């Protein structure tokens, strides 16, 4: 497909449709994504030589990718509704003021540290779906709750979720972690502080930021250093999770110092500690089981024995764009994060039932709520992943990225690289998929231009990490637990502009680094 302004604008059309409907017309995620899907199919058929067979296989591929996400979404919704039914969300919301009377500190604990820690076990918007209701319980509006949790964990996506996005970058580029990790860890480390600052301002205004700024700086420094140290020493799959855990511990320790100690709020209802422990036990079980499955090799190997995947043939459009034959990503039913969530739900149900925390009819209410929320969120995810699959198999995504890279000068390209990462993540809802889509393209462009390859790839994955949290697919999931189904556009309007701040910082640093460092890699 020749690259010119018309073909480039046509490639962009499905994304523009989704953005305009969600941001301009406040359309629901599922409706905007369906419109994006229809426009992608039309553009593919009319201008990109797409055939019905290419589109049909694209939909099969989209379903397979969606199932991976939806299994986690349904598990997370089930877990959320169970803990909500038991009163745990209210208990956590009531306990937080006893840690600190400063509202900005409470918000930072939930929507900067806890949410980033949860990203370590599973992404796809689940950390937002778990943490946003706690903020609503603290009195924040649902829109603000989703926005704060989204921005708060954007830095942790790349090295979170057992660093699947980073592993994908290594796999597609063929470069080792030792080459890629240092610069990626630096760029993402620099995004930690701005993410926290935005959360503090949203949580308690500029006053909140002034109060917490020294805390933010110290905790960011610790998290950035821990993440960097682990990433450069080959432990990238634990880098973000350990960093956020270290941040959480340092924050709690600092809050005990006279300089940072705040009187607990008068309204603080500190729940008896044993009750609180039982109430939050599902999260503790989730962490324990999640880490056990990933970190105990024999257990991982045993559970990972059963796997399913689809074999897709080589696809070719009428204009000659070829998608190579492939085996889809294997689906491991027993070690999948969705199964871990279901196991957690089962054990937690037993604990809650024994302790009498579940009233009569709880099962019926939980099922009804899950079905109601899952229907809308899942349709949105399927349609949005469908947009990505149609665009990729028709050659539209490649043309879009080629256009971006060819229209930018060598000097400015490092500042553009994160935005290509953002584009891929926005489109697919995943840092991982963004790296698969654009990793090689960014590497080849950097080589042709004589730029520092690891720096450009670090900018790509940092952009993907920061951009994934504002993708419709993730926002739909985040909104599903705070009663914002069909109102995702309200969140997107606030989130997109705010989330671009850390992206701009990463872009500026990448540009400066490139200018000062010269070519290399």
């Amino acid at each position, binding site marked *: 497909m020749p690259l010119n302004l018309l073909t480039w604008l046509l490639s962009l059309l499905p994304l523009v449709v989704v953005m305009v409907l969600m941001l301009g017309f406040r359309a*629901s995620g*599922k*409706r905007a994504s*369906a*419109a994006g*899907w*229809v426009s992608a*199919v039309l553009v593919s058929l009319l201008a990109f030589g797409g055939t*019905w*067979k290419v*589109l*049909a*296989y694209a*939909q*099969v591929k*989209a*379903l397979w990718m969606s*199932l991976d996400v*939806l299994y986690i979404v349904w598990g997370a919704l089930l877990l959320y509704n169970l803990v909500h039914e038991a009163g745990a969300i209210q208990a956590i919301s009531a306990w937080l003021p006893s840690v600190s009377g400063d509202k900005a500190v409470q918000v930072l604990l939930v929507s900067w540290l806890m949410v980033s820690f949860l990203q370590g076990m599973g992404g796809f918007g689940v950390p937002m779906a778990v943490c946003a209701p706690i903020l609503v319980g603290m009195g924040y509006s649902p829109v603000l709750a989703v926005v704060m949790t989204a921005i708060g964990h954007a830095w942790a996506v790349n090295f979170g979720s057992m660093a699947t996005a980073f592993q994908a970058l290594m796999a597609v580029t063929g470069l080792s972690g030792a080459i890629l990790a240092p610069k990626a860890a630096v760029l993402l480390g620099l995004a930690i502080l701005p993410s926290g600052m935005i959360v503090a301002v949203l949580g308690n205004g500029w006053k909140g930021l002034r109060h917490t700024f020294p805390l933010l700086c110290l905790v960011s420094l610790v998290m950035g250093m821990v993440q960097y140290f682990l990433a450069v020493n080959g432990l990238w799959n634990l880098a973000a999770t350990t960093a956020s855990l270290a941040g959480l511990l340092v924050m709690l320790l600092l809050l005990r110092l006279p300089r940072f100690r705040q009187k607990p709020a008068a309204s603080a209802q500190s729940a008896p500690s044993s009750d609180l422990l039982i109430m939050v036990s599902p999260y503790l079980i989730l962490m324990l089981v999640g880490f056990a499955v990933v970190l105990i090799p024999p257990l991982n190997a045993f559970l990972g024995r059963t796997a399913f995947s*689809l074999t897709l043939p080589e696809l070719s459009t009428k204009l000659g764009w070829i998608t190579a034959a492939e085996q889809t990503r294997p689906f491991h039913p027993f070690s999948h994060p969705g199964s871990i969530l279901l196991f957690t739900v089962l054990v937690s149900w037993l604990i809650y039932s024994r302790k009498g925390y579940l009233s009569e009819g709880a099962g019926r209410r939980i099922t009804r709520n899950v*079905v*109601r*929320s*899952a*229907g*809308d969120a*899942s*349709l949105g995810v*399927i*349609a949005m992943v*469908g947009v990505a699959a149609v665009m990729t198999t028709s050659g539209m995504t490649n043309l879009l990225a080629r256009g971006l890279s060819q229209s930018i000068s060598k000097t400015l390209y490092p500042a553009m690289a994160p935005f290509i990462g953002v584009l891929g993540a926005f489109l697919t809802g995943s840092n991982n998929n963004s790296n698969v889509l654009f990793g090689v393209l960014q590497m080849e462009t950097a080589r042709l231009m004589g730029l520092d390859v690891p720096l450009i790839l670090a900018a790509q994955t940092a952009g993907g990490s920061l951009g994934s949290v504002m993708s419709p697919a993730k926002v739909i999931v985040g909104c599903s637990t705070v009663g914002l*189904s*069909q109102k995702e556009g309200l969140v997107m309007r606030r989130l997109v502009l705010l989330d671009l701040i850390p992206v701009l910082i990463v872009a500026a640093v990448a540009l400066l680094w490139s200018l000062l460092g010269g070519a290399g890699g």
Partner: protein
Amino acid sequence: MKPKQNHLPTLSMRASFPLLILELSLPLCLFAALNSEKMMLAKLLFGLITAGMLAILILPENPKG
């Protein structure tokens, strides 16, 4: 006197669920049809998937869910 009821179909959250089941199962049937080279059936299934997407797009949403 009761106001006249509006019977226009809406895509309520309850109606989303059957649609979701269709959008999940049809691509799997489509994959089976493509693999066994039953092209007419595959075209029909792809048409149904498209109809599902159009239903999400066109049917008004029920604000009450």
